[in-house]
């Protein structure tokens, strides 16, 4: 062990457990008014998990309804509201804030060797903006629901008699929550790095969060103005999206996807970051092609601004725009492919621990391969003309969003759970849950690929009978998937009661987050850290810390 970073057992040996960020102060206000990034991260974690479970329940309702061709449960209007709620909750309230808000907040300052994020008050504000946005979205359900789909395409969103203004303002707030989180992380990464932590010594999770933050800051305002304009349209008929008044619905799609395509990368880049961390720690091997990985994160961020039109290949944009957007779209495939290959190369000849975080990571690698490759199929212009707005697209983006991003989120959660709370969950149950989620997920969405290529359109409350068999398979898969998630929620919550102590360095990480005491003290480090080694240098790993339990 030859590193200058703080030593694990820096605290004096006394009988009572050392002070950490969890037990340093008590009471409701010590949490609700906290400026500590770790506590804000925990609050985000609770919030986004609740949103995920709510979104998951909506998803199960959707799948159950589609058991029969004429729809089993709901009226069409209710069905439309439920799939809209599923989309809106999952996209805006869960996926976008999930990883940056919870794990990013928790881990990023630790990895940088900072005492906190640069703007702690803004951090708390963005959490409360998230709460406000979620509240408005929930209020919209009470006000009668909204059935526009999460994309709010004009002019339907302008004409429907439902609570679009409420959800629109909710999304405006959620957008600013996201902007402030990103802004905070950019400033933190630039200004609060520990001495010696150069740009190319930063863990890749930091790179990924940094690239994400660029997108959050630069793309989200356009979503903000778009939902505001939709609200104005409904309030006083500006007419710019309303074809009755000379407006152009395609302009709405441009505005919307200018944000929402980068948003896909706002969602997926942090997932890439988590996976990059996990493959190296659990293979105990430096990340393959570190610099190329860092640059490809930035490249994805930049290119993602140039490709939004591929959501509009059938929407009536010009041939020139289709040409340009299809051409640019294929360029995103390159850095993404580089990432996938580099992860596999990192695992190659590693020392691969098959613990639950690694199992989730392997599941991610397989599922993301499918999600990414089907994306290439959709990028081809004429193939997309057939597959657009079918279940093929639905399956593709679920492979990316649910299969990849949520799995990466679970992987990260399992990875940093012992760091956050100093306790371990039941590994056996975790492995079972991972298997259930993996099997259930594929069973849900592989039939959807087939259905989609045969022409089953998306957002259908009822369907022609020939697709019934595929829908059955899909619904059964969704139930398996749901039971896997339920099991995961169970053992994670149970671990909080059982309190089996984790190790100081549970998995053998060598980045700064694993070199501070577990759980971290209030200002993260007993002594200000400085970095002298290259990133992911496993020759510096202190094996004793892997066997020292948390006191």
């Amino acid at each position, binding site marked *: 062990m030859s590193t200058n970073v703080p030593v694990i057992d820096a605290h004096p040996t006394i009988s009572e457990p050392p002070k950490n960020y969890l037990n340093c102060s008590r009471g409701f206000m010590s949490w609700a008014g906290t400026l500590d990034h770790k506590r804000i991260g925990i609050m985000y974690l609770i919030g986004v998990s609740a949103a995920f479970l709510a979104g998951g329940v909506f998803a199960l309702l959707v799948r159950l309804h589609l058991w029969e061709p*004429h*729809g089993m*449960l709901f*009226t*069409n*209007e*209710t069905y*439309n509201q439920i799939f809209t709620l599923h989309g809106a909750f999952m996209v805006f309230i869960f996926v976008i804030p999930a990883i940056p808000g919870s794990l990013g907040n928790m881990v990023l300052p630790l990895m940088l060797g900072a005492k906190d994020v640069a703007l702690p008050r803004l951090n708390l504000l963005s959490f409360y903006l998230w709460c406000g946005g979620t509240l408005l979205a929930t209020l919209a359900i009470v*006000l*009668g629901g909204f*059935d526009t789909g999460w994309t709010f*395409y004009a*002019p*339907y969103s302008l*004409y429907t008699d439902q609570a679009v203004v409420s959800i629109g303002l909710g999304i405006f707030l959620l957008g600013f929550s996201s902007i402030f989180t990103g802004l905070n992380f950019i400033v933190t990464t630039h200004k609060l790095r520990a001495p010696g932590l150069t740009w190319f010594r930063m863990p890749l999770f930091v790179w990924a969060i940094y690239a994400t933050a660029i997108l959050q800051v630069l793309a989200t305002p356009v979503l903000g103005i778009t939902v505001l304009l939709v609200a104005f349209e409904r309030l006083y008929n500006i007419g710019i999206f309303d*074809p009755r008044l000379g407006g*152009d619905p395609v302009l709405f799609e441009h505005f919307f996807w200018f944000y929402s395509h980068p948003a896909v990368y706002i969602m997926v880049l942090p997932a890439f970051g988590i996976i990059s961390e996990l493959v190296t720690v659990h*293979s105990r*091997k*430096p990340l*393959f*092609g570190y610099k*190329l990985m860092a640059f490809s994160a930035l490249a994805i961020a930049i290119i993602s601004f140039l490709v939004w039109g591929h959501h509009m290949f059938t929407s*009536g944009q010009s041939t020139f725009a*289709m040409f340009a957007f*299809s051409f640019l779209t294929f360029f995103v495939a*390159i850095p993404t*492919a580089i990432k996938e290959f*580099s992860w*596999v*190369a990192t*695992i*190659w*000849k*590693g*020392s691969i621990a*098959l613990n639950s975080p690694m199992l989730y990571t*392997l599941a991610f*690698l397989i599922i993301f391969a499918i999600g990414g490759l089907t994306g*290439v*199929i959709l*990028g*081809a212009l*004429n*193939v997309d*003309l*057939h597959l*657009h*707005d079918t279940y093929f697209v639905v399956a593709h983006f679920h492979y990316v969003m649910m299969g990849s991003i949520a799995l990466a989120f679970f992987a990260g959660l399992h990875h940093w759970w012992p760091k956050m709370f100093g306790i371990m969950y039941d590994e056996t149950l975790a492995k079972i849950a991972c298997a259930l989620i993996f099997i259930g997920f594929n069973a849900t969405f592989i039939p959807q690929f087939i259905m989609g290529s*045969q*022409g089953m359109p998306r*957002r*259908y409350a*009822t*369907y*022609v009978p*020939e697709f019934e068999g595929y829908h059955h398979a899909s619904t059964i898969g969704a139930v398996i998937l749901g039971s896997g998630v339920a099991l995961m929620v169970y053992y994670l919550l149970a671990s909080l009661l059982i309190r089996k102590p984790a190790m100081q360095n549970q998995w053998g990480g060598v980045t700064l987050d694993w070199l501070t005491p577990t759980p971290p003290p209030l200002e993260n480090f007993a002594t200000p850290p400085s970095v002298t080694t290259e990133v992911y240098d*496993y020759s510096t790993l202190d*094996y004793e810390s892997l*066997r020292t339990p948390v006191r």
Partner: protein
Amino acid sequence: MFAQLIQDPAKINYVENPAKPPEIDAWGQLPKLASTFDHVDGLFYFTYIVCIFFFVVILGALLFSVVKYRRKTWDQPAASNVTHNTPLEVVWTIVPLIIVMIMFAWGFKGCMDMTVVPEAASRNTYKATAKQWNWTFTYPNHATPSFNEVWIEVNKPVQFLCESTDVLHAFFIPVMRVKRDIVPGRFQSVWFHPIEIGEFHLFCAEYCGDDHSRMYAKVHVVSAEEFATAPWDKWDDTTPALAAKSGESLYKNLCQTCHSVNGTPAVGPTWKGLFTKQGDTFVGRQREVIEGGAKKTITVDEAYITESVRKPDQKKVAESPYDKNNMTAFPDLDERRIKGLIEYMKSLAAAQ
């Protein structure tokens, strides 16, 4: 505040009598039924194979590593500490780049072929009008339109000019591999060249509201001889009973989405009890309507129904929620068909 949430079992909420499903080939794909097949499916299979190849490579490498390099003791270091390999990284940047550029060029070529309408197709132009939630098809050189069903001639390129009167819809015939969003306020065109006779699905692929999934039309590809008989223009109203029967099939195609005949609440008012039979004559019911903002009571009669079909906003039923819901107008519906619908309404009374 809340509309009815749970589906009424009495209202089976799906498409009546859809086209027969097309046969699926060994790849799980649709059969070759139109010229556009070559544009789409060649590239589709190419990308499919490329993707399967890469997937197998990735999966194989993963499984091999996991089996071979599994950590056996808790403090086992990695078998190798290689951090990068520049030639390898260059290769896996360049090779995918070349492959995707091939895909792009191929895709764009196919897309141009599918969007640039050839001369032959533009001489055989239909108009497809999409409304919430039905389709109206107007034929080249033929006055009578058809609703939710369309007949086209086999082996003759055809163009559809699509128009929407309300929100976004999309014209999607899976077996013909064509899809185009229909943006209100302008025409979008779609063309294809059907090469086999049969019945096929036409879906709305862009979300358009409550009954998006019921916005279905059946495409009949028929031989030139059959097409010459104008099968969409058959309307049997030789007797009131036959007219009612024709009216019923039109109802199922066009009106059932919003109007029930058994009293079930729906988007529009039910047709049950519009007429009652008294002896040999049918008497229309009394109904409160709003005309020009004022409430009045009218008797349902043929003139009122004709007006309601063609100008539905003229007299609105003064009863929630029908006073707020808007019905789409059908100015294209001719006298004979409206008469058929009325006969059908009357037959409902007779059946009771």
